[in-house]
């Protein structure tokens, strides 16, 4: 699959899943806009690694939780490139708390970054995709449909993101834009180490039929497929990447014998 000549914006692509997606696209020939908010060094490293694959990288800082910063991000892309072919809504944040401790600030912070940003980015991206079509893929998580400890706000935000994906898919279809999402189980990233430390996620290898945890490259492979012409007829779907965990009984029954 080739993405030669395409331009992809991957939000939050300094680290983890976003970085893996950026590198996958770059390996297929796409130029990459590397967006970050809090980790400049990581973003610049991703950009260097993208460029080492022979394509262009543009690093743009923007807090996607801030609508004005999204405007600036897309103004910069519009002014510099005048177009966009792929948007990956990957940037995410969240506050891990029991329901009793969720306050308005935590709710709005999470929703603004995990859901509102995806709507605003899709609106802006659709304009830059005008007349050329495009692909939008958002990164959800299994917390959208399964209950994880202290994951309420993020889980609800991801459920909303998956609903948004369906609405975007239908409304943007006449404009030649394919919209989908992926939902992964726990992915081995720096962010996951935090969740391990906080006791929010346990080692899931033993309850994963595929025998190992999901790695960022697993996600990048599926996202790249969804952004290919081969996936043209997949619209508004959330593809689960979990090594079979959610369809097996192993998670309920404990270790697989």
């Amino acid at each position: 699959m080739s993405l030669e000549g395409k331009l992809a914006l991957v939000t939050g692509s300094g680290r983890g899943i976003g970085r893996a997606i950026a590198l996958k696209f770059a390996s297929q020939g796409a130029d990459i806009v590397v967006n970050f908010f809090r980790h400049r060094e990581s973003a610049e490293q991703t950009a260097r690694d993208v460029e080492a694959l022979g394509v262009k990288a543009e690093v743009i800082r923007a807090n996607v939780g801030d609508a004005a910063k999204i405007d600036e991000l897309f103004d910069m892309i519009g002014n510099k490139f005048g177009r966009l072919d792929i948007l990956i809504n990957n940037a995410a944040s969240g506050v891990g708390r029991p329901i009793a401790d969720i306050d308005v600030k935590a709710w709005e912070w999470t929703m603004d970054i995990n859901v509102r940003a995806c709507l605003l980015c899709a609106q802006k991206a659709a304009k830059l995709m005008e007349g050329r079509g495009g692909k939008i893929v958002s990164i959800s998580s299994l917390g959208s449909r399964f209950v994880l400890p202290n994951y309420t706000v993020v889980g609800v935000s991801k459920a909303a993101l998956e609903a948004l994906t369906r609405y975007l898919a239908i409304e943007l279809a006449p404009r030649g834009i394919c919209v989908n999402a992926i939902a992964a189980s726990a992915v081995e990233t720096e962010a996951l180490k935090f969740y391990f430390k906080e006791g929010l996620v346990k080692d899931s290898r033993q309850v994963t039929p595929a025998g190992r945890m999901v790695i960022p490259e697993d996600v990048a492979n599926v996202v790249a497929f969804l952004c290919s012409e081969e996936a043209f007829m997949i619209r508004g779907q959330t593809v689960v990447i979990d090594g079979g965990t959610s369809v097996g009984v192993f998670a309920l029954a404990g270790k697989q014998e």
Partner: protein
Amino acid sequence: MNIEEQIKDILARITRVDKSIITRQSTFKEIKADSLDVVQALVAVEETFGIEIPDEEAQKFQNFGDFVTYVENKVAQGQKV
């Protein structure tokens, strides 16, 4: 108002603590700032002073004084985002 006072105002507004309890020796925990409060304070300070404070640097702050010193140095350097 000097930089220290402006940052105190920002932190007090976000954490809703009395500004008078914040000293250079105060840890974020003592100011009752959780991780979200700290990120929001960093963002507010960045916008107020037109600087960038990467997480890699912010994670080194042991107390309020470290935060203030970092911002003072950045502002003195005239660093812009």
